[in-house]
């Protein structure tokens, strides 16, 4: 019942008698290499809508290569934006590749005219120190009527927007447990 072709060919083209064309293509592609690219899902960092995006890059970090972002577009599979982006989101690639983009903490010392790079530890220690000093100096536990208010009104906080509900909850607890009054979210800006 089984049918067998004239020659032993493991491919459709070979079995049908197009081995010459197949061989020509094999010879043609031999000097070519495979280019590596990736497409990665993420959310736009700008506002609370958190539109889905696909980041295209050349090179594959997982394979130990260096990857460069070459294109960013709306993620059509994302239920929030279905592939659309606002003008800010559509320009995200320039945000990533911007020469003025901040890559690490910088510090401009009092009286200095330039920013200097500092480590994350230094930056966070300094922020914590300054916050603590300011809170110790200005924290208001009770108002003039003697009512307990626990206010810290001399420092404000602006939180980032591309967050989950859980991050937002933790951020709120952090700010309010310190007594911060001036607290808002980038999402409303």
């Amino acid at each position: 019942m089984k049918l067998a072709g004239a020659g032993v060919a493991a491919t459709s083209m070979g079995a049908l008698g197009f081995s010459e064309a197949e061989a020509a293509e094999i010879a043609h592609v031999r000097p070519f290499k495979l280019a590596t690219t990736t497409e990665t899902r993420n959310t736009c960092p700008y506002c609370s809508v958190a539109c889905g995006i696909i980041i295209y890059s050349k090179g594959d970090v997982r394979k130990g290569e260096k990857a460069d972002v070459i294109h960013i577009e709306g993620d059509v599979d994302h239920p929030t934006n279905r592939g659309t982006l606002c003008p800010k989101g559509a320009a995200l690639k320039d945000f990533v590749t911007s020469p003025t983009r901040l890559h690490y903490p910088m510090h401009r010392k009092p009286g200095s005219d330039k920013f200097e790079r500092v480590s994350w530890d230094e930056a966070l220690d300094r922020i914590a120190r300054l916050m603590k000093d300011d809170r110790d100096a200005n924290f208001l536990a009770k108002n003039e009527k003697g009512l307990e208010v626990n206010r810290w009104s001399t420092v404000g906080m602006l939180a980032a927007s591309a967050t989950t509900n859980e991050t937002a909850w933790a951020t709120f607890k952090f700010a309010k447990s310190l007594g911060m009054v001036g607290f808002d979210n980038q999402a409303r800006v």
Partner: protein
Amino acid sequence: MSVSSLQPDPSMIGGISKALFALMPNPARLFKERATRFEVLAETSNLAPYLKFLAGIVRVQADLVAELPPVQPVDAEQVARARDGAMPPIDRSAMIQSDEYRKTVQLFLDRVQDLEMPAAAAEALEAVRAADDETLAWMAGNVIGDTLPVESLAHHLFVAAATQVHAARLAALLDGNALVPVSVGVCPSCGGKPAGSMVIGVQGAEGARYACCSCCATMWNEVRVKCLACGSTKGIGYRSVEVDGGEEAVIKAEICDSCNSWSKLLYQNKNPTLEMIADDVASLGLDLLMKETDYRRAGFDPFLIGY
């Protein structure tokens, strides 16, 4: 609003439609356009003789669509039952038992005789034409099982091409809105394997990815950056033939580190002339380069077996 309408529609502002789950084939156009695409690709390809041969095969498919009497649609009750069970409404094993299917195969085999083809192909066609009903049924079974025996790939190509005609005509009569996802990489119309997938630029589905059934040509929506073979979204990467100047390729291999397979992805949104089957064959170079890697091809195309 129809996709091709030029009438302004204010309701389009603000309301971004969800991409349709399934795009049903239009056999009258499908095979004509595919044949034309094969001919265009043959003009500049090393594979010209094969592409011209396939253009001829697809022209016969188109002729058959125009000539054959209307096909009996799938029973409404079966469509409803399949939907309830998340199964494809076209039962391919029942399909190949039907007289309509057998007549389509016979007529196809008669017509392709007139094509110019190498001796090996002509010999295979002669063997298929001389085959008894039992052998033909066995071949049809292999075709709908999406696995072709390596020793008779040429014979099966003819039966597979005839099957595509019948399956596409059946699928065309289904209501795409009534289809439900069956499983990753399984056609919601007929249960067939995809040849690959395309990112399309059609209004209302810009940038959405559709897998293209190798049997009935139904296109169904699959989430992007996801393996079509195992459904994993982890470890997905892309490979393409590197070209000078670093221009972005419009045909890529989507690789999956979870199951070590790859499937072809055509960016039709970047080059609207791309056609799933024709460009799959013409981009054999990518298959040849991918063959040297650890990944194996997941897409099924009866015109391109063995890579």
